[in-house]
Every structure is written in structure tokens, then in C-alpha cells.
């Protein structure tokens, strides 16, 4: 086990690194000034907890993160007009909202509804949110398309800590390798799946559009109907008719 000693001579403004093994310096090198800056930054980094003395904090961090995930709700089917404050007010009805993070959409088509991760104060509140929104259609920033809510999952967070104790291994598979054929096939398959996903998404968007249009028609028709009824009642025609036919309706 060897270690490095960095010596900075303030008077001569030189930086020398020495490698020591067993108390004996077996290698030394003078570092150029260009490295000086990097050295300072390295020292700065050393002054914060480093890997060697905190594998336990990695585990603790990960545990804290998992706990946060449990408290977080994933909300879907949001209109792009929903802002953070809207989310806060909306879900604030169920408890205290600690944090709202929208998941940006960089890969898919532009029209898909937005989604967000909302961190609540405790597990119970998160569960309450999910159960209420699932049972009753919850309207946010517009009607009548309801929002959806699920419990959040680890992979939904983009700033997640690494699961401690995980190693990633990989190897290159070239043409001579017996697995090359299969690997290429798998790659093609993955691309195909991505295309399938996109296609399905577009189909579903088309269906949604159709439904929205249908509903808009229905809504207009109903609105007209109700305004007619309102007008008829308010201007006296309906009560008049009722009197004529001896019916007890529309008695104000």
C-alpha cells in the first residue's frame, strides 16, 4: 500500500508529489503549474467525505432515497399548463407537499401528456393521494380528463444514488465471437421494440384526440340544451305553459 504526498512550496511556488512505500520515498515528481489548479481542486474534494471512510453513508443515503421514493407520488395525464404551484395546491389538499418535479419529455412525440413526481411528507399521505385519485376522477387545470396517480418507482428519479455494492461489467463481442449473431439480433430487436412503442403511442394519441372531439360535441350540445331550458324557464314561457296544462312544474 503506497501513498502520495503532495508538497507545496509557497516560496518557490512549486508543487512536488512524492510516492511513499513503507516509509520510503521511491518516486518523486515536480508537477507543473498547470497541475497546480487541479491539485487545489483535488484537495477541496478530499475535504469532503470520500469513498474510503464512508461506505456506510452510501448505504444510508440509499436507504434514505428509498424512503423518499415510498413517499413520492407519480402523477400522470397532466396538461402542459399545470405548473408547480397548481400541483402544490391540488395535492396540498391531501397533506403537505414537499417537492414537485416535472419529468421532462425529451424522447417522445410532443403531444403526450405531462407527468410529475410529487414528494409528500409521509407515506400515509402518499397512499391517500394515490387512493383518492384512483377512486374518484381528479381534475387538474381543466376538465374532464382526469389525472392519474401511482406510487413512484426508483427509476423515475433522475438524481438517484447508486445502489451500493453494484458493479457493472461488460465485454466486447466481435464478429469472431460465437455470440455475435445473437447479439446483433438482440440489438435489432431492441430497435424494433422502440419503434413499436412509438407506433402504439401515436395510435393512442389519435384515439384520445377522437374522444376529445366527441366529447366537445356532446358538451356543446348539452350546453345548448341547458341554455335553452334556462331561457325558457326564466322568460316565463315554461311556467306559462305549465299553467295552461295544469301542471305543477316551474313554480317559483
Amino acid at each position, binding site marked *: 500500500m503506497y501513498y502520495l504526498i503532495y508538497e507545496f512550496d509557497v516560496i518557490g511556488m512549486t508543487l512536488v508529489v512524492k510516492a511513499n512505500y513503507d516509509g520510503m520515498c521511491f518516486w518523486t515528481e515536480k508537477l507543473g503549474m498547470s497541475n497546480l489548479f487541479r491539485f487545489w481542486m483535488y484537495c477541496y474534494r478530499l475535504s469532503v467525505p470520500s*469513498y474510503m471512510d464512508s461506505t456506510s453513508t452510501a448505504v444510508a443515503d440509499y436507504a434514505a432515497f428509498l424512503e423518499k421514493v415510498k413517499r413520492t407520488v407519480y402523477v400522470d395525464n397532466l396538461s402542459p399548463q399545470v405548473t408547480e404551484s397548481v400541483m402544490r395546491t391540488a395535492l396540498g389538499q391531501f397533506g403537505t407537499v414537499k417537492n414537485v418535479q416535472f419529468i421532462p419529455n425529451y424522447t417522445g412525440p410532443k*403531444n403526450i401528456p405531462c407527468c410529475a413526481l410529487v414528494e409528500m411528507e409521509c407515506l400515509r399521505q402518499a397512499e391517500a393521494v394515490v387512493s383518492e385519485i384512483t377512486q374518484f376522477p381528479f381534475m387538474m387545470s381543466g376538465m374532464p380528463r382526469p389525472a392519474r396517480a401511482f406510487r413512484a418507482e426508483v427509476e*423515475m428519479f433522475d438524481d438517484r444514488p447508486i445502489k451500493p455494492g453494484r458493479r457493472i*461489467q461488460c465485454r466486447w463481442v466481435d464478429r469472431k465471437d460465437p455470440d455475435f449473431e445473437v447479439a446483433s439480433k438482440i440489438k435489432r*430487436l431492441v430497435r424494433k*421494440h*422502440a419503434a413499436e412503442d412509438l407506433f*402504439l403511442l401515436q395510435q393512442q*394519441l389519435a384515439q384520445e384526440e377522437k374522444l376529445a372531439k366527441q366529447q366537445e360535441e356532446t358538451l356543446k350540445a348539452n350546453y345548448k340544451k341547458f341554455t335553452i331550458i334556462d331561457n325558457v324557464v326564466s322568460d316565463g314561457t315554461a311556467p306559462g305553459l305549465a299553467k295552461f296544462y295544469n301542471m305543477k312544474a316551474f313554480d317559483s
Partner: protein
Amino acid sequence: MVEAEKADCIEFKWGKKRGVGGKKKDVQFYESFFYDGVDYTLYDSVYMYKEGEPEPYIGKLIKIWENADKTKKVKVLWFFRPHEISNYLGDEKTPKNELFLASGEGVGNTNVNPLEAIAGKCNVVCSSKDSRNPQPSDEELQEADFVFYRAFDVGNCRILDKIDEKIAGIEVKFLLNRVGNQNSSGVPKLDSNKKEVSGNAVVIDDTRILAKKESYLGEKAASSSGVQFDEVAKTNERQVLVEEKLKVAKASGDLDDRSCKKAKVDDLAKASYDNRVKSTQKLRHDSNDSSSKAVAQITPAAEDKSRPKLTKDPQETNNALSEKPKPDEKLANGKFPEASLRQPSEEGSKTNYKIQEPTRRPATDRSKWFRGLPWEETMQTAHEQGTLVLLQNLDPSYTSAEVEGLIWQVFKQSCTAKMIQRTARSSPHSGQAFVIFQKREVAEMAVAKLDEVCLMLSNGRPLVGSIASPCFPGKQSTFFGHLTINKLRIHMQREMKEAVSTSHCSQPNTLEYEMAMEWRLLQERSDLALRKLRQQQEQELRKLRATLKSKLEL
């Protein structure tokens, strides 16, 4: 069921203070405030709605203050609509969204109004070809609510093609487009500078400025600092301009001397932040709203110190540190293990990887500040330069840091990676990530190599790489499913806001409920279809994987 009504209490909060004034020094001037869900800053253009008028007035806030009796006032410099000065326009046909800036001396130039009369914020862009006016991009002109390039003199009742130096005591600089309005055209030519400087700049800025800042929201602070170094990192002309601004600050009246320098610098940073926000067409209203209270206070001292440092370092760190202004830790990451641990080279990849793990941790809190806005911009610039790569078929449980470590291990290249967050629609079989390499050649080489020779990750996953073409969330207006009945747009300004904040659960005996059920039904069907697709995909994958002769242990 449960309704959240905010009809009666409209949210208000003061922003940055500017100074005191008035006869008894009891009037407090402000530079920004948060009102009814929107952030306003000095020199913003706003709608002022008057009862009975079909269209709102549009004006520019040139003074904001609160009196001793707690009444809040704003002084507004008006824009005239074409129809208001149709007599003086004559036969000329003006575009519908053109405005005329009020100028000259006389009645009708400006007015003092209660702050509560403000009905909303408005995007007015100055399209004048005047040399004093920062030219807007075509995009900005397109998405602006209104444009103006001429003025109307209320004293002489004439239309002026050239805008005066000073209107209503305000320098024209504040009335034209804000400086620091970063368009994509601005970025490429400064990239060479950015590459060398950005690494240090962020690091220095971070350690110094962030430490001294009293910012409420780190996000705002960091982006301000990002903006700050952006501006400073540019060529001298920009520095001169900033100097000029400071001088201008001293010149404009009724401002405290002490706070004026700060105020101008902050305004600049904030203004450019605001404009950047506007120009990148944020879908993220959240960052707008939540940053209402936060204004970065950059002490002039810190700023001065950072400048000399920055100009010195570019020479020294020419070995391309990666070009993104993301948290310093990640930056230096790729380079440090290389520099200091030159000895143990065999364990090179493993040790490097190890070291990358922990250094991510101290940065986790800070990295939250840099999230969102900067990532999208770096992705955009990377995309334009051709260094953005999309990796598919990763294990969905990988994190961004692991991906970076992987790239380092495999290609010996440092990069920035970001795992794409999982949503209800994403595939559980294949995770995706965006990777930004340092150079286009490197990106292309990596993609080519991944194409020809398969890189097998554990569990039979060959990595698929391609040059990415991401889609950036723009001003999305097509959301299916939200219906409205009345189309009166003007009155809707305030009403819509109130309606927007009312979220509720639908009651079973309403039309809304029935329609919501229809949506639910559609949603279920879609989910079912998606699930079936996933099952089928899984089967296909499993079949192929079974034929793999050698398996990597996880």
C-alpha cells in the same frame, strides 16, 4: 368533494428591494414582486385591465413602490395600440400586434396605478433595428405577444421612428429588449471560449459565489451564476457592457447609491435569466413560479474576484475539461483519477469507477440546483454540435453516474450522461440514456463502434447507440381532453387563473363525471394494449437471450 378556492386571497409577495425614497424616506421601491401566480420585474410589460374595456391596456412597469400606508403602486409607461392613434397613422396598415411606445412630454405618457390593477404579464419584443436594441431572433418575434419599433410622442402627437434616449426619466436601454438575451446564434461562436473557461469558471463560481450568496432557491442562484459566468466568460466587449451598465445604474435617479450597483448587476443577471427562460420556451412553469422569491444577491466583491481569476486560467487548463456547466464534482471527476492515480493503471478502470461513485454524493444536493434548465441547454448545444448520443437497452436501474463510469471504462472518454426518467409508458426492458461526449468525432466513433462490435452488458444486453435527436418540450398547446365552453379570451385572463388553481374530484352526478369515466375507459384500454405489447416484447427478448452461449454474471 374537496375544493381549493383561492378566490379571495390573491397571493402577493414582494421581491427585490431597490431603495427608499419619498419626502420622509418612507417609500420603499422594489424591483420585483410576485402577484397572483406570476412573477413581475421592473421593466416587464403587463396587461392592465379596466372594467368595461374590451381589451386590456399594455404598459411597461417603470417604477414599483409601496407607500408608508402600505398601498402598493406602480408607474406604468404606456404602449399605444394602433387603433388608439389611428388618426395619426392615417391610411397605414399596421400588423395587429404592433404597439407604439409612449414618449415625449405630456399627459398620457405614464400613469400611476395601484398594483392590483395588473392583470397579467405580456411578452413585448422590440423589433427595432436600432443599434441600441439587442436584436431578437425570429423565434422570439414569432412567439412574442406584441412587437414595437416606433414611438408615439404625446406632446407633439406624432409618430416617431426613432426612440428617444430618455423617456419619462428612464434610459432607453431599459425600454428596449433586455441585454443578455441568449439565442442559439449567440452560443456557437463563443464555444471555444466556453470550453476552456467553463470548467474553471463553474468551479470557482461555485465555491465562491455560491458560498456567499443569500439565495432562497439554489436553482435560481445557480442559474444566475451560470449566467454570470456566461457573461463574463465572453469576450471583453461583454465586460465593457457590464461596466457600462454599472455606470448607467449610477446615472439613473432616485436610487440608493449603495444598492444601485447590486441592483443593476442583479437585474442584468435576472433579466438574462428571465429571457433565457422565455427563449427556451419553458414548459417548466414550475421553475418560473417557484423562483419568484429568490433573487441572487451577488456581492460586487465576489464578482470582481471571479473575473481576474477567470481570465488567467484559460491558458492553464487547455486540456479540454468537458464543456458542460454541470456540478464541478462531476467535471473534475473524469480528469482527476487520470492525473493523480497514474500509477495503478491496471485497476485503472475499476478504481476510476470507484472514485466516481462517492464524489457524486457530496454533489447530490448541489446537482439539484443545476437540474432542469442547464441540462436542457447543454443537451441542446450538444445536439447542435453532434455530440449527443442516445444509448438504449441499458438496464433501467442504472443511474447516470454508472453510465458515465461505463463509458469511461469502455471508451476511455469522459462524458456526461443522464438516464431518462422512467414514466408509466417507458419500457421496463430497455433503459435509455443521453450521453454527451466532448467532441463530435468521439461521439461518432463511439456509435460506430457500438454498431459494428457489440458491447454486451450483463444479462445479455447488447448496448445500442445512436446519434440522438431529442425533442425539446416547446409551447405545447395540444392536450386532448380539456374542454372549455366560453371563448371570451380577455376576461379569461383572471378567471382562467382562478379556475386553474381549482383542482377537485368529480362528483358522480355531473356531466363532467361521465366524461371523465369515458377517459378512464380509454385509459384502461390503452394500458391493456401497452401491457400486452410489453409481454410480447419480453417473450421475444427472452427467446433470443436463451440462445446466447456465454452468460455474464450480474
